[in-house]
């Protein structure tokens, strides 16, 4: 942790403590009025081991960059840059199908101190410590990375331990204090100040409105949200503005703290294919620059910038929620607006190198001719972008069905386009555009205790720009993306509900699947064991299908205290 971040952290903690004690001083007439006799301090948490084994081997994705459109005459050779990109890519590999994939021990402890606990006035401080050690790379040599290599560049095989969740290791301290906030609750409002998670939205598995906080995606979306959602220093005020209708509220969110999504490192098991292309491309163009393969005039630069933590750069959000009484039962709804950073960076190509011409900032492309000579980007700048997200959610019971849904209209979102085909000013591969995402879902219980849940999720790019691509791979992206999810679970009465099964099935219409069956056993009140599998099927560069070599069987043992 840098000294600068440490100073900011200590300042924030100091401010919180000053506020807590100031409030206590004003309210001492009611302090410690614990009518229930409950102890003021509560501590609880768990320790957990999660182990997983691959059941497929993975030789690594060969020739990750296969772009042929601009150079059809070159056959399998494809774009001139492809050779370098592919030779310098670094891929995760799994040598044997029963290789250990994960041996993760985590510790989660929560502390709640009730300063004030009156019937209609509560003041509490909450903190959470979360840390984990994944010792997989100390236990096996069967997983790691493999690089093709060129003279003078890294090649051969290695241990992915340097890349895979290394900064979550116990030796670092940055993310161990996970949450720390003060809660103040009175009939008119709930105020939460501090490092916290703010969760919006109704749906499971996909995040359409749950965009307030960034996420740790280093284990794709397999981590519990509780662990993968990254808390931020923020203020969350829920104001019940109508005294006689307290079920209506306005929520104001203010986040002056910037955190980015944590993405997979190069060579890690859960690196998405688009990132593999980025890492390989970055490696290739640095190589070209280093050895002057094109010309001494070619210089490659990779810039990265995060927004400064200023008031102007803060995120803001407002949400209105309520309940409408209807003849057939209540309708719950929310409407929200969030002005936030897109927590995933977008790559901006700021210029190209053209043999015989030199560096060009823009060009008028003639597909198949001009672009053949555009060999390499001179500058890639990874930046975060501001977006506006308008959202709405609902839930309503109709008969035996509980329906829920949410929609998100995102404005000014960067969309990747093919920089070589996308028109006259093709120097950048990012276009601003708008997207509409929605989900409709149901929950239903049948035969007393079989719980069923289904969802349809559609992501629509409005006025989709031409030659839209998924990312640096330049694979075509369609304007409509559809997924279905289905969950079934059942506890067994025969075992007094201490044993149960569940299964998640997700299907993408591009032909991808994710299936996650599980059986769990509450051994005692404190110990829970699970055995399950994560099965992925599909093609590379598809959201779920790209992990078809990461299918695994896992066990989990959790002790709660």
């Amino acid at each position, binding site marked *: 942790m840098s000294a600068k971040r440490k100073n*900011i952290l200590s*300042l924030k903690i100091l*401010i*919180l403590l000053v*506020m807590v004690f100031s*409030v206590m001083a*004003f309210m001492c007439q009611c302090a410690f009025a614990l*009518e*229930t*006799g*409950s102890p003021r301090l*509560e501590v609880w948490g768990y320790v957990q081991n999660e182990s997983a084994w691959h059941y497929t081997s993975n030789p690594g994705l060969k020739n990750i960059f296969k772009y042929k459109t601009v150079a059809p005459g070159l056959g399998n050779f494809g774009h001139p840059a492809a050779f370098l990109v592919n030779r310098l890519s670094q891929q995760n590999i799994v040598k044997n199908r029963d290789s250990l994939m994960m041996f993760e021990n985590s510790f989660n402890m*929560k502390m*709640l101190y009730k300063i004030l606990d009156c*019937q*209609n*006035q*509560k003041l*509490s401080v*909450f903190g*959470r410590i979360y840390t984990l050690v994944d010792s997989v790379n100390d236990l096996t040599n069967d997983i790691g990375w493999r690089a093709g290599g060129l003279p003078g560049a890294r090649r051969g095989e290695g241990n992915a331990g340097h890349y895979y969740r290394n900064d979550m290791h116990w030796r670092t301290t940055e993310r161990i204090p996970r949450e720390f906030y003060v809660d*103040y609750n*009175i*009939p*008119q*409002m709930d*105020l939460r*100040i501090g490092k916290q998670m703010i*969760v919006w939205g109704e749906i499971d598995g996909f995040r359409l409105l749950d965009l307030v906080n960034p996420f740790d995606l280093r284990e794709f979306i397999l981590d519990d*949200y509780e662990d993968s959602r990254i808390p931020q220093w923020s*203020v969350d005020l829920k104001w*019940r503005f109508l*005294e006689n209708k*307290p*079920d209506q*509220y306005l929520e104001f969110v203010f986040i*002056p703290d910037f955190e980015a999504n944590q993405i997979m490192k190069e060579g890690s098991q859960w690196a998405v294919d688009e990132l593999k292309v980025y890492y390989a491309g970055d490696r290739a163009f640095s190589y070209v620059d280093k050895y002057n393969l094109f010309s001494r005039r070619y210089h490659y630069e990779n810039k990265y910038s995060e927004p400064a*933590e*200023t008031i102007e750069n803060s995120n803001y959000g407002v949400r209105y*929620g309520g*309940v409408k009484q209807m003849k*057939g*039962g209540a309708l719950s709804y929310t409407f929200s607006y969030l002005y936030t950073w897109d927590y995933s960076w977008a790559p901006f190509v700021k210029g190209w190198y053209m043999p015989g011409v030199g560096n060009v900032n823009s060009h008028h492309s003639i597909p198949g001719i001009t672009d053949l000579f555009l060999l390499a980007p001179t500058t890639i700048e990874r930046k975060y972008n501001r977006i506006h997200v308008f959202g709405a959610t609902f*839930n309503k*019971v109709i*008969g*035996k069905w*509980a329906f*829920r849904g949410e929609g998100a209209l995102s404005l000014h979102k960067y969309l990747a386009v093919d920089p070589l085909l996308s028109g006259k000013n093709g120097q950048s591969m990012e276009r601003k555009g708008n997207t509409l995402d929605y989900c409709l879902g149901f*929950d239903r*219980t049948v035969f*007393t*205790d079989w719980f069923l849940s289904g969802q349809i999720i559609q992501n629509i790019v409005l006025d989709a720009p031409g030659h839209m691509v998924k990312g640096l791979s330049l694979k075509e992206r369609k304007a409509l993306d559809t997924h279905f999810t289905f969950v079934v679970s059942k506890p067994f*009465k025969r075992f*007094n*509900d*201490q044993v149960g099964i569940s299964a998640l099935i997700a299907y993408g219409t591009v032909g991808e699947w994710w299936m996650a069956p599980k059986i769990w056993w509450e051994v005692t*009140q*404190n110990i*829970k064991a699970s055995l399950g599998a994560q099965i992925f099927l599909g093609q590379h560069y598809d959201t779920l299908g790209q992990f078809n070599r990461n299918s695994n069987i896992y066990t989990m043992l959790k002790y709660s205290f």
Partner: protein
Amino acid sequence: MMKTKRGFIFSIIALSIMLSFSLSTQTLAEEVTGITLEKYLEQYKGVAIKDPAYIAQLEKERKEYGISARDIQVMNLYYMKFMQFKTWDVAFGRLPLLREDGQVRERVVTRQQMTMPPESGIEVKGNFAFLSPNEVRGMKALMITYYSPTKESDYWMYVPSLRKIRRISAADRDDSFFGSDCTWADAADIKVDEEKHRILREAPYPTQWDAKIYDEPDTAAWEHVFDPSCAGKVGEERDKCQGIKNNYPFKFPLDPGRKPVTDNLGPMCYVVESIPQWPTYYAKKITWYHKDYKFSLCQDYYDERGRHIKYFKRTYIKIGEQPGVPGTTWSQNWWFVKTLTTGHATFHDVISQVANTPIKEYQFTQSSMVGTGR
């Protein structure tokens, strides 16, 4: 420097908001009107029953017993739903789940309820939250029931692991209530005319204490409720055991030596048969209603083959506005339900309950379901 200044201004503003709201708290005086039994009964008079045979049977009962089985059930609901209180607050209740082999899974819960004025159309708003164990800690349910005999109740549930609120279909009332032997329908959510009721007879409640309860394994799970010296005793010997005279404040460790209310033993009862008019897991229910107060002391459930599949026993005490001090109004105390087909049982011990505390309506909203640290 910029950050320091921003943080300081930010904290001052937040502090001011907190203080201004706290000062105005005292001025909020939201009166919620309780509803009398007479008013509650009136709600059901306007409901048209279409089955002439059932109408005739109820009329006949009124002549014979002075009251019909349906009226008894309405009055029972009045007590089961705590309609006589403006608010009802169970700060701590234990909900051990008892396996046939003796294993006990302990749950500690808290529960609150508010009776709404009839003009709102809402009967009661209630919440139910788990304090322990940690696996379910922070899980919270919000319930709204309506006066309208045809309008289904509404339920929401907060799931801490997802940090999201989930809607539950009221039609799933046969579902287990948080893993207990109690269904959502048992938790006071059954409409009067969803069953057809018939008085079978008047009879004294068996004075012999139901040995089945004491035969349950691991009676230590609720020995603090009963005087252990009463355990296993039957007949007159059992009746000599003292009953609970009031409710108790919550203490650690739990007080042993508490005794059941003897009022459950021996009073005259109406024995009423109820046949469900909706597809559910039981075909018949026999209820013993206290003749004077009309609250149910015991319910036996039978399937379509006539097999006894479940029983549900309740006790009542008089509570007031102070925990541990007896009041003037009857309220449910502990209850015990056992599923005979599995041997699984659930015991709910209301450790501390008070009536008419200054609970406010905001505590029954979705925005307040997200607790600190959950």
